Every structure is written in structure tokens, then in C-alpha cells.
């Protein structure tokens, strides 16, 4: 499983990070270096081992589905790079 330039381009696209053409080769080589080191996990027999996603031992707590917060539009928009009339502003997405 080796990462090439095209894969780097694809990962960059999935991660929404622009990767300039000239750095793709180097990033591919760095990722390969790290991934080949990770490959030692293949030595471990994990058949019948349940993946561990949470160490808490508790199931997620439930609460009533009611509004507990709100009426804070100004706070919500305070850090927006661009906002207008109570909305976030983004580049045009519909022609």
C-alpha cells in the first residue's frame, strides 16, 4: 500500500487542503515513511479482537430532547470572517 503523487492529490482533496504540485512528491514520501512504520501492526494477531473506540466503559448519557441554549446569534457570528444580516457569508455556490 504505497502512497503516490496522485494519492496525495486525492487525500488533499478529501481533507480540503490545497497541496501545491511541487510538494506532492515529498509529502508522498513522508506519508510512506510513516505508514511503512505503522505496518508493523500487521504482526499482531487481532482475529476476534473487538476494536476499542472508547475507554470509559460507559454508554453515552441520554438527556431530554429540549432546547438548553440559544438566542446568541451575535456570539455565534462574532468570530466569522464575514457575516451579514445575521448570516455567515461564503463565496457564491449557486449560479
Amino acid at each position, binding site marked *: *500500500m504505497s502512497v503516490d503523487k496522485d494519492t496525495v492529490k486525492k*487525500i488533499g482533496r478529501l481533507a480540503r487542503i490545497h497541496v501545491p504540485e511541487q510538494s506532492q512528491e515529498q509529502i508522498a514520501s*513522508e506519508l510512506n515513511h*510513516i505508514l511503512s512504520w505503522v505496518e508493523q*501492526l*500487521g504482526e499482531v494477531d487481532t482475529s476476534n*479482537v473487538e*476494536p476499542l473506540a472508547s*475507554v470509559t466503559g460507559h454508554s453515552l448519557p441520554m438527556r431530554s430532547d429540549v432546547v438548553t441554549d440559544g438566542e446568541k446569534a451575535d456570539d455565534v457570528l462574532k468570530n466569522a470572517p464575514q457575516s451579514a444580516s445575521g448570516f455567515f457569508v461564503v463565496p457564491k455556490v449557486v449560479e
Partner: protein
Amino acid sequence: MTELLSLSATEAQQALRQKECSAVELTTAYLGAIEQTAELNNYVAVTADKALEMAANSDQKIAAGTAGMLEGLPIGVKDLFCTQNVATTACSEILRNFVPPYESTVTANLWQAGGVMLGKLNCDEFAMGSANETSCFGPAVNPWSADTPLAAGGSSGGSASAVAAHSALLATGTDTGGSIRQPAAFCGVVGMKPTYGRCSRWGIVAFASSLDQAGPFTRTVADSALMFSAMASHDPKDSTSAPEAMPDLSKALSQGIKGMKIGIPAEYEMDGMDAEIVALWQQGQNWMREAGAELVEISLPHTKYALPVYYIIAPAEASSNLARYDGVRYGVRSDDVQSLDDMYEKSRAAGFGEEVQRRIMIGTYALSAGYYDAYYKKAQQVRRLIRQDFDTAFASVDAILTPATPTAAFALGQKQDDPLTMYLNDVFTVPANLAGIPGISVPAGLSKDGLPLGLQLLAGAFCEDKLYATAATLESMANFKTSAPKAA
């Protein structure tokens, strides 16, 4: 003034209660120390006015007899904790102008307990690093440096540096793979990572949510227990916050370790390990035995897989957590864009540093279609085996003693070429995060170059009492008293 700076938190608490000094005097001394040690670059923002206001408030409470458990004690905050109306950057370009309209639960608990906020402390960008070198503000410097600037460690390098330099009495940190314990060892202070879930993650900039845990930096073990008690709480705003009751820590601090069983894991003796570290670890074992504990050889067979597991799980969770930085709701947005996607891609490329981008890319790859089972699921399976190793060990021992770091503090800039070399710093600390158990790094000696070395103690989940009982004993046996040459 220097006298005030040399007091531990418990001593300062005593001095304040007996009116030997005021909270304003104590805070003023610390603000002076911050100025005096500015070259260490451990603060990214100083909130002097707020600090003096909070200290004056503390003096009133002390006079009224309503002092909280941290009343009047000056605290530095890692710049990963959201602080209301005080910029919180995670030391990243992408959050350089972010001012949270809310306060993290942990810092709210500290202020509720009477703590005084000195300012925000330097760290690696989004807590990703082991030398504080990925910060957009440049690295924090270790106050033990002589001519060559040494790494304070990371990611909570500013926190460790400030507590060691006497420019903060207490400091908060976060530990995802060793980010409290490694810098504490490098700077000769006490750093503690609680059981996963003890401290609420609410309002802390997220890195890897199943591993992140906040904890205290202090100069003594007793101070650590005090600050940890104030930080921890069961918080409904964090769904993984633990409801488990807190054990009696003050009793633990004085109970000693007579009859306790301390595990020594064979797998922590690694090839090519520094002879000084091996010797210190041996010395630590002798101290434990002298103090009446029984040493037990144990095996944690999956130890060598902890780092590769970590470097899949942490980047995978990070790639998902950091998806929120889109240049729309907060953070920096690139101008001159052709479309919405173009805006995302350019803002994130410009706003994230090299190491953060690298980890997002690894995480995205590990989670992508076709590779999920091979990398992410595999890592989660081995994570369970690592957890089981500890479960088995803690069935027969009360605590585990290991080295804290493979080396003493290294020179800044020394390990930048190869990410893997940097990752190896966390070899002794990462397993505790994967297993969710508490760990503490206690300064235990000096290297031949005169740099601090730490030992780590680990305990079972929610057994912070055993952790502090063993740490207090280690501290008194090691009797580490020297202070950093560049301290105020």
C-alpha cells in the same frame, strides 16, 4: 519578591491565609517574573489587568473567610483552553484572531476555586508536537538551557517552562500522547495526566477526542493533587465526562506505600536506551523498595505497538476534529478564491502548519475507503490489546514505575528532519493515553549535563489515590530541589 516566587502552591495558600502576603502582592510578583523571563517565550498573551482584578477579588474573599481551594494562586493557561473574551489560538495561524465567547469547563472550575489567570501559554500547534516547535509563535524555551536553547518539550512546552521558570505557580496542560508528562520531565516539574474523563474536554480545542485529557503542571506532588482536585468535575457538556467519585487524595499524599506492589514492566527497557535513564529507573526502584513497597516484574507485551497505534488513531481523530476549520464560522479565511471549495482548500493550506497538515493527511488516508480496516480498525484492535495488558497488570500491582522520557531535553531544532524521531519521544507516555489510565511524571534526578530527568508512575483507571501515594513517596525519596538556572 523572589521569596514569594519560591513558595509552592500549598505554601502560598498558607501565606495568604495567614496574611503574610496578599493575593495582589503574589500576582504582582508573578507578573514581574513573566517580564523578567520573557526570552523563554512561554507566554503568548499576558492578561495582567485581569490577573490583578482577580487577585483583588481573592483578597476580599480571604478577608471575608470565603476563600476557595485555589484562592489567590496565579495560574497560566495553555492556549488550547477557551477563555472568555481572551484570544485562544491553539498556537495556530488559522485561529490567530479567535476570541471565544465562552469559557472551558476546566478553567471555569479553576476561577470558581479562586485561581488567578496570568495569561495564555505557548504550545505546539493544536497540541501536535513534542518540542513546542510547531507553534506559530515560535518555540517555548526550557529554563534549564545554558548557551544552546533547549526544548521545553511538547506539546505543553509553555506550561512546563513557565512553572519551572517561576513565571506561573500552576499551569494547565493537555495530554494526548504525553504532552503533559514529557515537558514536565524536560523542565524538572510535576506533570499529571488524569484518568480519561476526569477533566471535562468542553471548551478545550480538540485534537484526538478519545485520548485528550487536561491535567496540572506544578512544582510539587501535593500541589498537583490540589490543582487536579479543582480542575476535575463531572460535566454533562462532555458526554465522556466521568461520573466516578474522586478518591481521598489528601489522605493518599501522606499514607506512604508500605505493602504496595509496584510493577516494573520488562518491555520498557528498550534497545539503545540512554544509560542514565536506565540508572535512574533502577534508582527509582530502589527508592520504592526502601519505602516499603514490593517490586513485581510485569509484562505489558504490546508496548512496542503503542506508538504506531497512536499515530493512526490520533491523526484519524484529528482529521475529523480539524474539519471544522473551514474559514466560514471562525478563524482565518484566504482571500482571492474562485469557489467555496477553493476557499476551504486555500484557507486550510495557509492556516495549518506543516505537522498539522501531515497529520490531517495521514488521518484522512487511514479513514478513507479501502484503507479503513487495514489502518484504523487494526489500530483500534491493537489498542484493546494494550488496554488488556494494563488490566491484567493492575490485577496484581497497585502502580507501575517507568522512565518518563527516553532522553533529557534536547536542543531546539535538533529533531526536525524526521517526524518519526520526534514521535519516539512519547514511547513511555503514549500507552497510558491509549488505555485511558492516569500517569504522573515526577522529577527524580539530573543528567550528567545537569538537566532534569523524570520518572513516570501509572495507576489503574480512577485510582488517582494510588498514583499520588506513590508519587509523593517518589518525590520525597528523590528530594529533587534544584531550580532552573533561568528561573526568575
